[in-house]
């Protein structure tokens, strides 16, 4: 039996190869995601692990510090210089080195443009030669000398290479400190760690006094203390000993603990990225299931006589089922293996792409055993699941069919199909509603499974739905194309199950693309309306990726002719009643002149150190005006009153708001994340824009935008994200196209004699190709129509679910959705090219005489 199975497998290499291709793509995506994120993970671990000294003294921040901290302002809490000496004198301590660090000193190249990759921090530190826990040096001088004295700086090797500076040149920086523009003479080049890679960040090194001057307002203090223990002391003992001499607001941790926190923060940061990629891999595999299911169904149908013969010769049902499943396993294994190899290619490609954007990943690709196991498990399992239904059907072929010419495979009844399909749709819809509109935990997973169930249910009903839809879609064929059109329409209708399964694969991709485009269009429309209605300021100053900048920018802007006032908005992470939140800080009175701010309850008087909160957040957190909340910031931990509840808008998405005074008292450095510029009545916009551009010329990390440009920027961001998602969903669409190709090719083979007959009675090759093409178009458009219809439902549901959180306006991009349907038609034409050519090439005589 096994031998017979393998032989028939070899005989249908091509058809199976095409269905294996779906597995290949899906597995490649899974493998690519894992390998790539593992590689980043290892790179970051290599770069940022093992940098700490035996014991570290640092500010005690509320909550865990995130790894990608370039967007956070950090803290102004410092370690006084005197304490460093005290720690150095403790038993078990060999030496203690004070460290000064900033995350936002951006190096400008010789053209005056920032060097760092967008979003990566500009790190600056003071030079010292204290060792790490394993006794090595973090920084090694490779050229020039160590910076010594004001006005001297050393750069890391990568930044130096990219900057175009030579030793002795004057290097310019942009700082988020009070003085935004800094300049120093380049005296040396240092290498960071073993590889020199900083994952896109830059590193500038000053002597201690200069660093204190630049980042700590000249105070003789440190951001951190690196403690080195004597050989006979343990790190934990020293840690506890040091802790006893520390004042409130500082903590003492071992280097091992720091490494652990760093590693888990890296992993957390990457897990989102990994999940994001895996979701698309899952979509691709899900679509692949349809392709495989369809291919196996057709193959089983074509071989039903062979199966019946086997049954007649005494093979049991189970043997027949097994023979189909064995084929599936072989296809799955082959597909997984090729997918694994292709996945490594995908990961390598991503690595090169990231390198091109300045994020070099050192070392080779990381292939964990887990990746290989998952690749095969997923590939084989998915194939077997997809082949199960056809395998069961194969076993139901009655032995007598071997003797008959026309075998009709037993199929489940329409009623069963309709019933089961409807129940699954209802269940999926219910899951979606629960996930979207109730506060159930793990909502994304519930919604995802709901959508999945709806897809399966619709696919089950598709053979029934598709018949009338095809009659409409292809209704004009006979009129426009005569007999060729009628043949195409009837071919699309002759096996609704096959047509529907093929179209369903495309439907899934199309539904997701449509839903995403509705969400995207709604986001754009919401932002547009928010800016039209909600922002009164004429200009906005911001950093393209949201990194904070010097408060001096707002001061300079306020001096520009025609500017009435500037309103700065600051942001910092903190905790409210133990929940980590993103706080915003501004003067509510001034803010209400720059943007919409209305109160449902209370008012905006933050003079007493209170907080404001948005309407929805107030409800979900169970707080109201007059309540007290516990507010934790890097340097403070106090109980404060809620003084106002405001109506949220896309400008103000509903979080907690404090005064800038409160932030400063909480040891958050005074850096702005956004500045609104309100002009005087009658001021010339162009002149003000010019003035603002000039005033901010020293700080190339920020841009001045009028409302229109600001809208465009936010639209561009949304569209960029959309393009990325489209590209990833393109994979699912590609697999669906392969499905159409496969189905058509198999159908053409199945209809060999019919094709021969048509050619014998005078159908030309061109007419034959057109017949196949028209059938392909109607399948593709059917998939697109079903997909867009579902996508509209999904999109509206998603928009409704998050309408309170910044997606108030529903926009249906009708034009774009129509384009999708038209593109599907084009897809149909493309998918038909090869099957049509095959059909046209059939030898007429052989086609007729084929048995």
């Amino acid at each position, binding site marked *: 039996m096994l031998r017979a199975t393998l032989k028939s497998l070899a005989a249908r290499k091509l058809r199976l190869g095409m269905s294996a291709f779906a597995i290949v793509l899906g597995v490649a995506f899974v493998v690519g995601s894992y390998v790539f994120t593992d590689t980043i993970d290892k790179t970051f671990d290599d770069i940022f692990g093992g940098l700490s000294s035996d014991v570290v003294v640092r500010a005690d921040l509320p909550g865990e510090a995130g790894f990608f901290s370039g967007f956070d302002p950090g803290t102004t809490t410092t370690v006084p210089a005197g304490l460093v000496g005290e720690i150095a004198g403790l038993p078990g301590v060999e030496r203690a080195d004070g460290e000064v660090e900033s995350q936002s000193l951006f190096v400008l190249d010789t053209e005056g443009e920032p060097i760092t990759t967008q979003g990566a921090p500009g790190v600056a530190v003071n030079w010292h030669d204290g060792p790490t826990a394993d006794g090595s040096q973090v920084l090694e001088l490779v050229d020039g000398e160590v910076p010594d004295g004001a006005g001297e700086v050393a750069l890391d090797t990568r930044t130096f290479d990219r900057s175009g500076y030579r030793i002795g040149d004057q290097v310019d920086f942009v700082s988020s400190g009070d003085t935004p523009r800094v300049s120093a003479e380049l005296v040396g080049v240092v290498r960071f760690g073993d590889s020199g890679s900083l994952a896109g960040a830059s590193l500038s090194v000053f002597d201690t006094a200069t660093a204190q001057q630049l980042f700590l307002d000249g105070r003789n203090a440190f951001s951190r203390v690196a403690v080195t223990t004597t050989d006979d002391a343990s790190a934990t003992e020293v840690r506890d000993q040091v802790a006893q001499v520390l004042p409130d607001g500082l903590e003492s941790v071992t280097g091992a603990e720091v490494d652990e926190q760093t590693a888990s923060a890296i992993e957390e940061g990457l897990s989102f990225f990994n999940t994001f990629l895996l979701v698309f891999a899952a979509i691709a595999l899900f679509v692949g299931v349809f392709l495989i299911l369809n291919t196996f169904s057709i193959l089983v149908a074509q071989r039903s006589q062979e199966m019946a013969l086997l049954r007649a010769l005494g093979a049991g049902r189970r043997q027949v089922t097994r023979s189909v499943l064995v084929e599936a396993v072989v296809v799955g294994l082959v597909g997984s293996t090729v997918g694994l190899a292709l996945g490594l290619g995908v990961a390598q490609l991503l690595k090169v792409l990231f390198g091109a954007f300045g994020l070099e990943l050192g070392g080779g690709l990381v292939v964990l055993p887990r990746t290989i196991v998952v690749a095969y498990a997923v590939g084989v399992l998915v194939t077997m699941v997809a082949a199960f239904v056809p395998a069961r059907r194969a076993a139901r072929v009655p032995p007598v069919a071997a003797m008959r010419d026309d075998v009709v495979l037993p199929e489940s009844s329409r009623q069963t199909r309709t019933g089961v399909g409807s129940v699954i749709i209802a269940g999926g819809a219910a899951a979606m509603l629960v996930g979207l509109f109730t506060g159930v935990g793990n909502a994304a997973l519930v919604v995802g499974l709901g959508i999945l169930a709806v897809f399966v249910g619709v696919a089950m009903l598709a053979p029934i739905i598709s018949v009338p839809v095809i009659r409409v879609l292809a209704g004009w064929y006979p009129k426009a194309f005569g007999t060729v059109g009628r043949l195409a329409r009837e071919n699309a209708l*002759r096996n609704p199950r096959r047509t529907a399964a093929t179209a369903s694969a495309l439907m899934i991709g199309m539904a997701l693309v449509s839903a995403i485009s509705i969400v995207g269009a709604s986001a754009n429309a919401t932002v547009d309306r928010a800016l039209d209605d909600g922002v009164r300021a004429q200009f906005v100053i911001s950093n393209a990726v949201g990194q904070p900048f010097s408060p001096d920018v707002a001061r300079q802007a306020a001096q520009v002719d025609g500017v009435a006032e500037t309103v700065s908005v600051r942001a910092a992470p903190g905790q409210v009643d133990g929940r980590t939140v993103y706080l915003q800080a501004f003067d509510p009175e001034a803010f209400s002149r720059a943007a919409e701010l209305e109160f449902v309850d209370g008012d905006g008087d933050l003079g007493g150190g209170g907080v404001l909160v948005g309407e929805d957040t107030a409800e979900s957190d169970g707080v109201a005006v007059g309540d007290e909340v516990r507010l934790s910031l890097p340097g403070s931990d106090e109980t404060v009153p809620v003084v106002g509840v405001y109506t949220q808008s896309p400008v103000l998405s509903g979080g907690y708001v404090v005064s800038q005074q409160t932030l400063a008292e909480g040891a958050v450095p005074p850096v702005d994340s956004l500045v609104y510029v309100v002009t005087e009545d009658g001021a010339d916009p162009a002149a003000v824009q010019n003035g603002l551009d000039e005033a901010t010329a020293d700080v190339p990390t920020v841009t001045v935008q009028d409302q229109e440009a600001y809208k465009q920027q936010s639209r561009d961001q949304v569209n960029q994200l959309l393009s990325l998602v489209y590209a990833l969903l393109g994979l699912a669409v590609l697999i669906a196209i392969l499905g159409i190709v496969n189905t058509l090719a198999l159908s053409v083979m199945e209809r060999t004699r*019919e094709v021969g*007959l048509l050619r*014998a009675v*005078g159908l*030309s090759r061109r*007419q034959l190709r057109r017949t196949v093409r028209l059938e392909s178009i109607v399948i593709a458009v059917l998939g697109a129509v079903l997909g867009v219809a579902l996508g509209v439902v999904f999109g509206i549901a998603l928009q409704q679910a998050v309408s309170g959180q910044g997606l108030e306006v529903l926009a249906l991009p009708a034009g774009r959705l129509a384009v999708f349907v038209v593109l599907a038609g084009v897809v149909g034409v493309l998918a038909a090219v090869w099957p049509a050519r095959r059909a046209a090439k059939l030898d007429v005589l052989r086609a007729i005489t084929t048995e």
Partner: protein
Amino acid sequence: MTELDSQSRAARTVDLAKVYGKGDTQVVALGGVTVDFASGQFTAIMGPSGSGKSTLMHCMAALDSVTRGEVYIGETELTRLGDAALTRLRRDEIGFVFQAFNLVPTLSARENITLPLDIAGRDVDPGWFDTVVSTVGLSDRLGHKPSELSGGQQQRVACARALVSKPSIVFADEPTGNLDSRSGTEVLSFLRRSVREYGQTIVMVTHDPGAAAYADRVLFLGDGLIVDEMADPTADRVLERMKGFDGLQHTAQAS
């Protein structure tokens, strides 16, 4: 064999040869056949399996390429035509009736009958259509799909399709091979009538002496050559001739 003038000649071949394979595996299917088919005549081609009768028909009907020689349908020489021209020729000048699988399963009987005209974009002559359809006795079955018709009815639809475009010549390949004797008789009678009443030219390949008896002339093929012909055949005479033929072949195989 009598020479015919060009007006009364529907098709002819000159030294037609067809060789399959090359070198040692070479098989000569037709060894150089020269034959004329008169207009308005019903010709049966007979011969044992492997005698080349099907190959002769396929080559004449522009379904297969030839190795040597010439094939004429009317005055058109086929062997030098490209695929497009051959397709047009099959569509406009030739009618086909095959042994099985004659109909497109997705089209109704009516649509199958008018298929060659529809493909060509030509109008159906309603009078002629009605004549043909009533002759084959299908007037009440026109809306049915082939799967709803009996084998005999399917072959009659095929015959109607072959005639409705008024081709110069109809080729029928074992048209009764899959039918019971009553259905077979119906189909043959219909072919006979179309020759007698409408002057249709028909060439039919068969191995059934009873079927051959409906023809005006029978050609006997053996080993790729025409070995005999018979005018106004009867079933008995054809059977007699075939017996001798069988014996001849058995002798040839034995030697």
